[in-house]
C-alpha cells in the first residue's frame, strides 16, 4: 500500500511538472499568460509530492517490506535501522528518486521565495526546471521504478554492499546531490534569462545566492566523500581520480568559475554571455556525471546498474537538455549586449584568467575521464590515473593559484602594478623561500614542493585584502572570500604534505611484536574475534605510541559480512594536530604472523579541514549577500514610502 502511495505521488508530481512546463512556456507567448498563475503553485506542489514519494521509499526500507523488489534486492532485515534507511538511496533506483526529489524541491524553493526577477523570466526559469525534471521523471517511471513489487515477496533481502554500511552513506550522497542537482537552478535561470533576454547585473545578483547554496553543498559532499573513501577503503588514499570522483569534481569546477564570473557580472556588468554559458555548463556536468555513474558504462563502487537501456535513456536526456540549452545559447548569445570593458590588470582581468584556467582544468578532467570510453570503442582498453591527471592539471592549477593570490588585491576596471607591488613581492618571496628551503634541505618531488610553496604564499595572501580595512565594517561576503581562499591554502598544504612526508610500513608480525612507522611505535598485543549485528570480524588490538609517549589503544578490523557475503577492511585512525596514524590489519600468514599496514600521514586532515573552510567561506558569502539584499530592499521600500509621502 505504501509503495503504491509513493508511486501515485510520483506520477502526480510528473503530471504537475508537465503542467508547470506548459503554463510557464505559454506565458512567453503574447496573450498566453492566463494560466501563468498556475506555474508557481504547480512547482511547489510538485516538490511536495516528490518529497512525499521519497518519504514512502524510506518507509518501505525502514519496514524492510520484502514484497518491494528494490528492498528485496538491496536490503536485509538484520541491519541497523540507520543503514536500512540510508540504503534507500544506496542503489540505482533510490538514488535517482533522491535526484528527482531534490530537483523538484529546488524548483519549489525558487517558486516559493524568489520574487525579485521579472515574472516572465521567472516563469521561463520554472518551465526549464520542469522540462529537465520531466525527463528524469520519465526515466524513473519507465525504466527505474523504485516502487516495483515482486510477484511473491522474498523471504529475505540480499543486503546492502557492506562498503556502504557506514555512517558516510547517511551524509555523503544527500549532501552531494543537493549540490549536484541544486545546480539545475543555475541551468534553469540561464535558460530563463536567454529566453527573455534579461542578462543583467540584477540577474547575476539574484542567481548568485542559489549557485552559492548548491556550491556549498557540493564542496561539503566532495570533502565528505573523500574522507569516507580514505578511511573506508583501507588504501590510505584520499583521491583516486576515479571517474565517479571526477564526475563530482567537474560540476564543482564549473560552479566555482560561475560564482566568480557572476560576481563580475553583478559588480561590473561584464562577462554576460560567459556567465550564462557557465550556468549551462555547470549543470550539464552534473548530468554527464550522472550518465557516467548511472549508465553502467563504468565500473565502480558507485555504479549499481548495468543495464544498457538505462544508459541510452540518460544519454538521450543528456543530448536533449545540453543540446537544447547550447542551441538556445548559440541563437541568443549574439543578442546579449556586450558588457562593460576592463583593463587586463584589474580584478575582472584576474577573474577572467582564473575562469579560463578553471575551464581548462575542467576540460582536462573531462577528457581524461572519457578517454577510456573512446579507446574502448576501438577495442583498446586503457585506464587513466594520477600520472595523467596530476601533472597535466597542475600546469593550469598553479598559475590559477598565483592569480588567485593577487586578484583580490586588484581594483575593478583598472589598476596599476605600483599599487600592489609590495604585497605581491611579499607573497612571491614567501613562495620562493619555501621552494628554496624544500629544494635544499629535503628531497621532495616537484609537485608536492610547489604545493607547499603555494600553500604558504596563499595562506598569507588570503588575508591581504584585509589590510588597511576597518574589520568591523568589512562586509560578511568579504570574510567569506577570505575564508574560502584560506581554505584552499589549507587543503593544498594537506595534500602536499601527505604526498611529500607520508611514511608507510608493511610488516608481518606475531602477537606481542611491534613495528615502527615515522615517529610511531605500534605494538600488536593480540588478534581477537568479535561480532556486530550483521558481521563477524578479526580485530587487531594494538597499542600505538608517538615518540615513546603514552600508548593509545587502536583496533583495526577485518570484517566478514554475511548478507551479502563480503569482507571489508576497517581501518583504525589516531588523529593528532600534526597528522594521522592509519592502521589496517590483513591476513594471517602460515607461521601465525599477522600482516599490518601502517601509515603516518603528516597534516593529512588539513585536506578536509581546508574543504570545510572553503564551504564555510561560501556560507559566509551567502549570508552576506542575502543580508545585503534584504537591507537594500528595505532602504528602497523606505525611499518609495518617503517619495509617496512627499507627493501626497
Amino acid at each position, binding site marked *: 500500500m505504501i509503495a503504491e502511495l509513493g508511486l501515485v505521488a510520483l506520477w502526480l508530481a510528473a503530471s504537475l511538472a508537465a503542467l508547470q512546463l506548459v503554463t510557464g512556456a505559454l506565458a512567453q507567448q503574447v496573450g498566453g499568460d492566463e494560466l501563468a498563475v498556475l506555474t508557481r503553485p504547480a512547482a511547489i506542489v510538485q516538490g511536495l509530492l516528490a518529497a512525499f514519494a521519497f518519504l514512502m521509499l524510506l518507509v518501505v526500507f525502514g519496514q524492510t517490506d520484502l514484497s518491494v523488489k528494490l528492498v528485496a534486492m538491496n536490503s536485509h532485515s538484520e541491519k541497523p535501522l540507520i543503514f536500512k534507511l540510508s540504503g534507500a538511496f544506496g542503489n540505482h533506483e533510490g538514488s535517482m528518486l533522491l535526484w528527482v526529489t531534490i530537483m523538484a524541491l529546488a524548483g519549489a524553493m525558487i517558486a516559493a521565495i524568489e520574487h525579485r526577477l521579472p515574472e516572465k523570466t521567472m516563469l521561463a526559469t520554472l518551465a526549464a526546471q520542469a522540462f529537465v525534471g520531466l525527463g528524469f521523471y520519465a526515466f524513473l517511471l519507465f525504466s527505474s521504478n523504485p516502487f516495483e513489487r515482486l510477484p511473491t515477496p522474498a523471504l529475505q533481502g540480499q543486503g546492502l*554492499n557492506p562498503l556502504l554500511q557506514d555512517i558516510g552513506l547517511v551524509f555523503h550522497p544527500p549532501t552531494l546531490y543537493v549540490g549536484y542537482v541544486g545546480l539545475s537552478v543555475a541551468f534553469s535561470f540561464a535558460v530563463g534569462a536567454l529566453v527573455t533576454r534579461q542578462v543583467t547585473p540584477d540577474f547575476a545578483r539574484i542567481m548568485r545566492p542559489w549557485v552559492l547554496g548548491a556550491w556549498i553543498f557540493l564542496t561539503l559532499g566532495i570533502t565528505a566523500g573523500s574522507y569516507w573513501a580514505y578511511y573506508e577503503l*583501507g*588504501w590510505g588514499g584520499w583521491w583516486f581520480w576515479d571517474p565517479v570522483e571526477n564526475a563530482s569534481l567537474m560540476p564543482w569546477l564549473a560552479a566555482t568559475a560561475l560564482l566568480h564570473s557572476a560576481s563580475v557580472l553583478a559588480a561590473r556588468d561584464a562577462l554576460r554571455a560567459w556567465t550564462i554559458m557557465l550556468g549551462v555548463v555547470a549543470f550539464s556536468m552534473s548530468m554527464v556525471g550522472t550518465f557516467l555513474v548511472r549508465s553502467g558504462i*563504468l*565500473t*565502480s*563502487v558507485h555504479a*549499481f546498474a548495468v543495464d544498457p537501456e538505462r544508459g541510452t535513456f540518460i544519454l538521450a536526456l543528456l543530448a536533449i537538455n545540453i543540446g537544447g540549452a547550447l542551441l538556445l545559447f548559440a541563437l541568443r548569445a549574439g543578442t546579449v549586449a*556586450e558588457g562593460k*570593458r576592463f*583593463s*587586463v590588470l584589474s580584478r575582472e582581468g584576474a577573474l*577572467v584568467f582564473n575562469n*579560463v*584556467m578553471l*575551464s*581548462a*582544468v575542467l*576540460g*582536462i578532467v573531462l*577528457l*581524461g575521464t572519457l*578517454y*577510456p570510453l573512446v*579507446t574502448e570503442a576501438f577495442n*583498446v*582498453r*586503457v*585506464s*587513466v*590515473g594520477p*600520472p*595523467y591527471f596530476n*601533472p*597535466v592539471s597542475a*600546469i*593550469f592549477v598553479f598559475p590559477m593559484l598565483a592569480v588567485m593570490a593577487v586578484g583580490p588585491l586588484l581594483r575593478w576596471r*583598472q589598476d596599476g602594478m605600483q599599487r600592489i607591488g609590495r604585497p605581491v613581492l611579499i607573497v612571491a618571496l614567501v613562495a620562493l623561500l619555501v621552494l628554496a628551503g624544500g629544494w635544499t634541505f629535503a628531497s621532495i618531488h616537484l609537485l608536492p614542493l610547489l604545493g607547499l610553496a603555494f600553500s604558504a604564499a596563499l595562506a598569507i595572501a588570503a588575508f591581504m585584502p584585509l589590510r588597511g580595512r576597518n574589520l568591523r565594517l568589512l562586509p560578511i561576503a568579504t570574510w567569506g572570500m577570505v575564508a574560502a581562499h584560506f581554505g584552499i591554502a589549507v587543503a593544498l598544504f594537506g595534500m602536499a604534505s601527505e604526498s611529500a612526508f607520508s611514511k608507510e610500513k*608493511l*610488516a*608481518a*608480525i606475531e602477537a606481542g611484536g611491534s613495528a615502527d612507522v615515522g615517529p610511531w611505535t605500534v605494538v600488536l598485543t593480540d588478534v581477537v574475534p568479535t561480532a556486530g549485528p550483521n558481521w563477524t570480524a578479526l580485530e587487531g588490538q594494538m597499542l600505538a605510541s608517538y615518540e615513546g609517549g603514552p600508548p593509545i589503544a587502536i583496533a583495526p578490523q577485518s570484517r566478514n559480512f554475511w548478507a*551479502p*557475503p*563480503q*569482507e*571489508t*577492511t576497517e581501518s583504525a585512525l589516531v588523529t593528532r594536530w600534526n597528522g594521522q596514524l592509519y592502521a*589496517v590489519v*590483513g*591476513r594471517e*600468514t*602460515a*607461521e601465525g*604472523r599477522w*600482516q599490518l*599496514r601502517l601509515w603516518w600521514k603528516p597534516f593529512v586532515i588539513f585536506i578536509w579541514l581546508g574543504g570545510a573552510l572553503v564551504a564555510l567561506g561560501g556560507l559566509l558569502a551567502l549570508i552576506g549577500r542575502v543580508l545585503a539584499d534584504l537591507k537594500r530592499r528595505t532602504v528602497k521600500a523606505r525611499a518609495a514610502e518617503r517619495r509617496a509621502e512627499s507627493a501626497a
Partner: protein
Amino acid sequence: MTGWMKPKHQRLVLIVIALASLVGAGLLAAWALRNQASYFFVPTQMVTAPPAPGQAVRLGGMVQKGSIKTMPDGVTITFLVGDGENTVPVRFSGIVPDLFVEGSGVVAEGRLDPSGTFVADNLLAKHDENYVPRELKDMTDRQKAQIVAETEVGK
C-alpha cells in the same frame, strides 16, 4: 590593454585568448593521454608484445592454481597470472584484496621489471556479485567463447 587597442576589439581578443588557452589545454591533454594512459594486457600479449619495462600498465588474468607463494617477510607474495595459453609471474607487496584466491580472476596494476616479472602496486579482485572489475568480466566471457571454439575444433 585600453591604451594600445581599440576598445571594440577587446571582446574579440578576450575570446581568442580564452579559446587558444582551452584548445592548448585540450591538445596537451590529448598528448599526455597517449603517453600516460595505462594499457591493459592479457598474459599472452604480455609475453608476445611486452610493454617497455617501467611503463605503467595493467595485467589481467586468472591466478594459477598452486602458484601463490609467500616470501619470508610475510607481506610479499608471488603468483602466476595466466590466460590459458601463457603465464606471467607477478610479485606484490601488501595486503591482498579479500576475494583474491587461486583460480579466480585478478587485475594487477603495475609495471614489468627487466627480468620479466610483473611488479604490482595494486591488485583488483572480484569484490562482490555487483562489482566485478570491467576487464575481468569481459575476459571471462572471452575465455568462455574460446573454450567453446576449442571444443568445436576438437570435435
